[in-house]
Structure formats: structure tokens, C-alpha cells
């Protein structure tokens, strides 16, 4: 058995920021299913929103975020996010992040969607990547222990308190128990539940599903962000920075169609608005080949594109054969981000003692029904830091929670038996691959940008059927190292749990708010639905209840752009 006072699960921005803030105060380890520098935070391109400009203010950032959230974000949490931001950006600067600069040497800022000011600090279009690698440097400096390619399997609870974790060492094909005082989940999102997603293969919602199974609460899971601009076909992300730097969206008639949907903000309306607009254009016959629209950067000039959007250019050339300096890119919306997650307070603490969460896995909630571009990177570092600081305060003072042999045995033995068994004969008729294909296309087609009650109800039923099939599959066990088939089996299980909660939540919420758009209930309904959706594990299926939204400064009003 291993012991660490604090275990951070996930090595992306939120996890590394958390670990960094605990290290030096308590014995800390990072457990990550891939090497930390491989984390999907590194794919974030646009930037980190903070109010640092002369005309800008923290107040304005708070308001834009509240409005962007369609008034479902918790305003106390948003206030923390926006207020802590500038300090964290300066802290990252002193760690060595190579921010892009203004002529006077200060940190440059660019416009992203839904913001009243150019507010996103960035490094060309590698913003997540450079911060991820800088934080990794700091982890090396602090000597934080990293367990790369280890997977969290289960949380171990004793008397309702999290006291450790059952984990799987993929390279050595071994089970291990880690005793802990505090666990911080920073495992990111579940984008792989959808066929069309910008997310990495690793983004399978492990932390959300494992926390939910252990009794944590998931909130607002029906709010799924679809990014407006991904390369048609491959769904590789084309940063919002492309529009922030001045790119235009056009339909087959050559019109900048956003004029009809968001006349003021145009291409820089929030993502939910832009994604719906694109699909509407396509639906009404103004999409190219019936499937995509154009994102046109040609008027920006090669120099600006090379300096500010080098990765966008490289990705478009390589994966679609289009040089955005010369021709418009072909783009379609795709799943990108989870607004929902493990419910936490403004310190990242969950109702389960000994368990915290930060970053995309968590729901604080700063994004409410729709996240603004540039606010998720900010959330990872602000709330990663807060979770780390909270645990740095708690862990050194508290005694090791008890963890009985009986509890360990109850969790460990079934896994030992499973892994020791001869690998089950793979069925010819069914497989995780088939179930995953059906689940992901179901989620994209029926739980996507435009939703209806009938399709959602059908989706729930079909997900239940997929789950039954899943439980009949043989488990791909064995003692060989790097058993990715076993990981795939577990990941499909997590995604099925989460997909069902998303679809049920969407089916129950009879209104349209932010990214959740019901064609049969196209209006926002504050009287009945201005509350969080809380999902708890039930006997056979999730149980739902309502949670209060923290409204401190801004009363809900109509949201127009």
C-alpha cells in the first residue's frame, strides 16, 4: 500500500496547479492516465480571460460571464474566478510563461466571444500548451511525485469519508491502493461520449463517473458546449482566436450570416449562439455541400496569421489541405466542453469529505449554461490553485482517516479476481467498439445542439439498452502491460453512465437556456428552471433534484448579443 497525504488525479492545468500549491505543505502525488504534458489542456489555443486592460474591470468580466452563463452560473463563484484571475496570470508570468506581449512589454490581450473587452492573455495560439509545460517545470522543481499512466479505478470510503483510492498501474498491469487524507480530482471532461468532438481520446469522463459512483453529486450535466469552429470531418479545433483576430463566418451566399443572429457581437457572440446559427444556416440550405460553412481569414493577411495563429494555420493545412491565408476553412460545430461536473463549493470541496474537484471535471459553477471562450483555462488555474491551497491548509493538521482492511478487501478482491482470470473470449457479435460507436453517434445526433423531448426520451431508452449489452461483454483482462483494451472497456462504462445522466437531465429540463436548446421549449423559463440540476446515484438509475443558483449582483434579464 502506498501513502500520500494528498493525491491529485489528473495532470492537466487544474491538477498541476493544485499539486503545486499543496507541495511544500503536505506530501503530494499526481496520478495521471497519460504523462502530464500529454494532457488535453495543452490543446487549448485561445487564452485566459482576465480584466487587466485600462478600460476593463473585474466587474465587467463578472457581468459578461454571468450573462454568458444565461444566468445559471453561481455569481459568488464567478466573482472569485474574475477577481483571482489577474494575480494568477502574473504568477504564471513569473514562472516563465512566454505570453505574447504588447509594444510596451506588457502582456497582450485579445478578444474572444461574449466579452466586452479584449481580455484573453495568450501565447500565439498555443496558450494552453505553454502554460501546461511551464507548470510541469514547476512540478519538477517542487519534486512532486508523478505516477504517469496510472488509472484511478475507485475511491475508497470509510464511514462516508474518502480515505484512499484503488488504482491501476497500466505499464506494469498491477493494482495498487493509495491511502490519502485528501484527493483532488482534475480529470477533465467526457468529450468522447460524442462522435463529433474536439476532445482527445483520453477525455472519457473517468473522474466524473468514479466520483458519481462513490456518491458525489453531478450538476448541470445537460449543459454541453459545442464549439462553433472545428474542421469539417475531423473536428479538429480551430480556435475562437481565429474570430477574435478578425475572422468572418460566411454561408454559400457569401453573407456574414451572424448579422442575422447577433448583430452587435457578430462572430464574437458566445459559442452557443454561434453554433446554433451555423446549424440553422446549414439546415436552411445555405451550407456548403449541405454540411459546413466557411471561416474566412484571408483578409487578415499572411503576416498576422503566421504571428498570431500559427497552429491554426498548420492544422488547417495538414488536416484539410486548406491554407487559411489563401482560402476559407470548412468548419462545423462539434462537442467541446462540459459545463456540468462534480458539484463543488468555491474551494473545490465536494459534499464527500476528503474529495475535491477542480477544472472541467468540476461544476463550481462558473459557466452555468454556457461557457465563454477563455474562461475555462482561467478556471483551471484559479480553482486548481484554490483547491490546492485549501488542501494545503487541511492536510497537514488532520489525522490519517481510518481505512479498514475489510474496505480495502471489498474493493480490491473483485479486481484481483478479474485481472487474474483468463481473458474472456471476445464476442463476434458485440464489442466495446460497437457499443461506443452507437453511443457516440446517438449522443451527437439526439443530444446535440438542437434537442427535442421525443428524441431525448428515445436516447435514454437506447442508452439503457447499450448499458445492458455492455454488462454482457467479457472483460478484456490479462497480465500483459499496456492493456488498452481493458482501459477502453472501463472508459466506455464511464461514458455510458455520463451519457445517460446528460440525456436524462436534458429530457427533464423543459426550457432553452445557454447551450441546452429544446426545439419544443424554445424560451428560457426562469420561473420553473432557474436552478441547477443535481444528479445523485440511485438504486437503478440516477435521481435528480434542484439546487439553488447563487444570485448576488445581477438579476436575470433577457440575453441578447
Amino acid at each position: 500500500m502506498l501513502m500520500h497525504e494528498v493525491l491529485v488525479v489528473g495532470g492537466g492545468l487544474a491538477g498541476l496547479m493544485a499539486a503545486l500549491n499543496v507541495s511544500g505543505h503536505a506530501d503530494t502525488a499526481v496520478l495521471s492516465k497519460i504523462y502530464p504534458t500529454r494532457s488535453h489542456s495543452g490543446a487549448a489555443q485561445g487564452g485566459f480571460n482576465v480584466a487587466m486592460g485600462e478600460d476593463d474591470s473585474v466587474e465587467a468580466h463578472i457581468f459578461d460571464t454571468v450573462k454568458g452563463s444565461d444566468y445559471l452560473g453561481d455569481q459568488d463563484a464567478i466573482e472569485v474566478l474574475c477577481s483571482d484571475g489577474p494575480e494568477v496570470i502574473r504568477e504564471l508570468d513569473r514562472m516563465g510563461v512566454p505570453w505574447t506581449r504588447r509594444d510596451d512589454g506588457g502582456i497582450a490581450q485579445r478578444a474572444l466571444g461574449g466579452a466586452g473587452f479584449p481580455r484573453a492573455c495568450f501565447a500565439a495560439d498555443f496558450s494552453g500548451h505553454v502554460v501546461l509545460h511551464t507548470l510541469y517545470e514547476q512540478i519538477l522543481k517542487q519534486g512532486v511525485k508523478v505516477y504517469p499512466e496510472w488509472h484511478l479505478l475507485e475511491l475508497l470510503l470509510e464511514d462516508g469519508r474518502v480515505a484512499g483510492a484503488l488504482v491501476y498501474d497500466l505499464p506494469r498491469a498491477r493494482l495498487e491502493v493509495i491511502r490519502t487524507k485528501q484527493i483532488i480530482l482534475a480529470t477533465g471532461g467526457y468529450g468522447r461520449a460524442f462522435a463529433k468532438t474536439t476532445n482527445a481520446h483520453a477525455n472519457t469522463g473517468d473522474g466524473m463517473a468514479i466520483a458519481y459512483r462513490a456518491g458525489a453529486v453531478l450538476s448541470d450535466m445537460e449543459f454541453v458546449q459545442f464549439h462553433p469552429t472545428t474542421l469539417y470531418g475531423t473536428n479538429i479545433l480551430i480556435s475562437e482566436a481565429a474570430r477574435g483576430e478578425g475572422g468572418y463566418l460566411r454561408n454559400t451566399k457569401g453573407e456574414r450570416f451572424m448579422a442575422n443572429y447577433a448583430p452587435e457581437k457578430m462572430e464574437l457572440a458566445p459559442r452557443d449562439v454561434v453554433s446554433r446559427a451555423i446549424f440553422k444556416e446549414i439546415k436552411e440550405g445555405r451550407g456548403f455541400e449541405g454540411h459546413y460553412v466557411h471561416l474566412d481569414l484571408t483578409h487578415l493577411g499572411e503576416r498576422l496569421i503566421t504571428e498570431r495563429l500559427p497552429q491554426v494555420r498548420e492544422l488547417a493545412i495538414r488536416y484539410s489541405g486548406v491554407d487559411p491565408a489563401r482560402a476559407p476553412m470548412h468548419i462545423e460545430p462539434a462537442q467541446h466542453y462540459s459545463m456540468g461536473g462534480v458539484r463543488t463549493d468555491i474551494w473545490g470541496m465536494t459534499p464527500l469529505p476528503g474529495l475535491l474537484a477542480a477544472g472541467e471535471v468540476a461544476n463550481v459553477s462558473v459557466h452555468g449554461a454556457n461557457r465563454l471562450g477563455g474562461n475555462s483555462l482561467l478556471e483551471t488555474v484559479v480553482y486548481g490553485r484554490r483547491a490546492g491551497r485549501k488542501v494545503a491548509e487541511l492536510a497537514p493538521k488532520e489525522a490519517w482517516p481510518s481505512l479498514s482492511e475489510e474496505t480495502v478487501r471489498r474493493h480490491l478482491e473483485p479486481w484481483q479476481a478479474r485481472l487474474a482470470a483468463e481473458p474472456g473470449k471476445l464476442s463476434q457479435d458485440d464489442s466495446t467498439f460497437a457499443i461506443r460507436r452507437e453511443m457516440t453517434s446517438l449522443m451527437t445526433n439526439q443530444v446535440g445542439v438542437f434537442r427535442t423531448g421525443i428524441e431525448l426520451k428515445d436516447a435514454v431508452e437506447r442508452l439503457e439498452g447499450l448499458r445492458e449489452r455492455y454488462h454482457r461483454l467479457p472483460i478484456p483482462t490479462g497480465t500483459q502491460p499496456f492493456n488498452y483494451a481493458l482501459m477502453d472497456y472501463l472508459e466506455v462504462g464511464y461514458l455510458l453512465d455520463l451519457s445517460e445522466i446528460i440525456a436524462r437531465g436534458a429530457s427533464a429540463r423543459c426550457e432553452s437556456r445557454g447551450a441546452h436548446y429544446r426545439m419544443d421549449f424554445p424560451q428560457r423559463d426562469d420561473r420553473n428552471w432557474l436552478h441547477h440540476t443535481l444528479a445523485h446515484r440511485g438504486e437503478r438509475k440516477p435521481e435528480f433534484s434542484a439546487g439553488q443558483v447563487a444570485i448576488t449582483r445581477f438579476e436575470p434579464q433577457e440575453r441578447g448579443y
Partner: protein
Amino acid sequence: MEVALKICRFDPKKDRAPVLQEFVVSVAGNQTVLDALLLAWQQDPTLSFRRSCRSAICGSCAVNINGQPALACQTLISKATENGAAVIIEPLPHFRQLKDLVVDLEPFFESLRATIPWLVLRDDYDGKLSPEIARQLEDPATCILCGICKAALGEHEEIKPACLVKAMRLSQDPRDVLGLHRLRLLQVPPEVLQLFIRKLPERCPKAIKITEAA
């Protein structure tokens, strides 16, 4: 189109030596070697290879493709099959093979420690940097630690390429106390350094160009 792949298989618990296993997969011309590997995996789920972002930013899927180290997600299948023969996919050379296409990355990540792999901040840093200097820092900061440089230049064991890139990136940062001392501390023979600087851009999947400021 139908594409033949020859993929290196090796399970240290069972096999004495690696063998090439043949797969035939059906892919579109604009798909990548990673897409082809994922299809092969569906035919034989015991196949092991790393992957994550599929957009050349995470560095997971570095393998040897037709004898050249490359990111599978960055290599179009049409390019890899240009000669009409089966695509041969093997683990990165100069790394220890752990299983199939998976290699031991621990020594590679450990090699970063030969320089002090973090910024040692100057006391008098006032929060400002010129935009030109910031732009110069960007290029080496795009390193994704994929290991291809080591696989491609591995015949020069005295080079720790990822460490050199890190050292060069930090040495050019005006915020860093150590600056150019970093390179002197590494004690890389000048001719080896020259060779590295010359060869890196053509081998690195991010085409990192480092200038010799030393």
C-alpha cells in the same frame, strides 16, 4: 482505400523477439496513420500504442513509420503509402520497447534534469518583455516532448535533445538568471551542438528552429 499495415508486436511476458503482424484496414485518403492504427486495434484489441490529442500537440503517438520517426496523427496515410507497399509501423528507435509500439519514456523525461528545467527568476524582473523577444521564446516553447528528436538523432548519445531544447528556450529568456550559463553547464561539444542545431528543424514534428546564441 484498403491499406496494408505491418505493425511491430512484442509482449515481454510471452515473446522472445518482436515480430511484424500484418493488418489490412480501410481508410480515406485524408486520414492519418493514427486512424489506421485505431482500426487495426479494433481487429486485435491486444495491440498497444499510445495516443491522445490526434492534432499533434500532446506528443503521445510518436512511432517509427517506414523507418522514420514521426507522429502517427500528423502523418497522412496517403503519404505513408506513396510507394504502394505496406506501411511499416514500429516503436521509436533508441528507446526501450515495453510492449508493441509503446516505449519506455522515463529516461527521456528524466533527461530534462540535466539542465535545471525551470525558470530561475531574476529579482529585478518588472513584468515587461519586448514583443520581439517574447516571439523568439515561442518557437522552442512549442516542444511537445514527443521523443522524435532523440529517436532521429540517437546515434549521438551525448546529446539529450529535449533537454537541449529546454535549456535553449530558458537560456534565451531575459527573466532567467542562468541564461547562457545553462548551455555551458551542459558541456555539449561545439561540433555536436552545431550538428543538432542543423538537423533538428527537419526532424522535429513542430519544426523547432533553435538559434545558436551561445
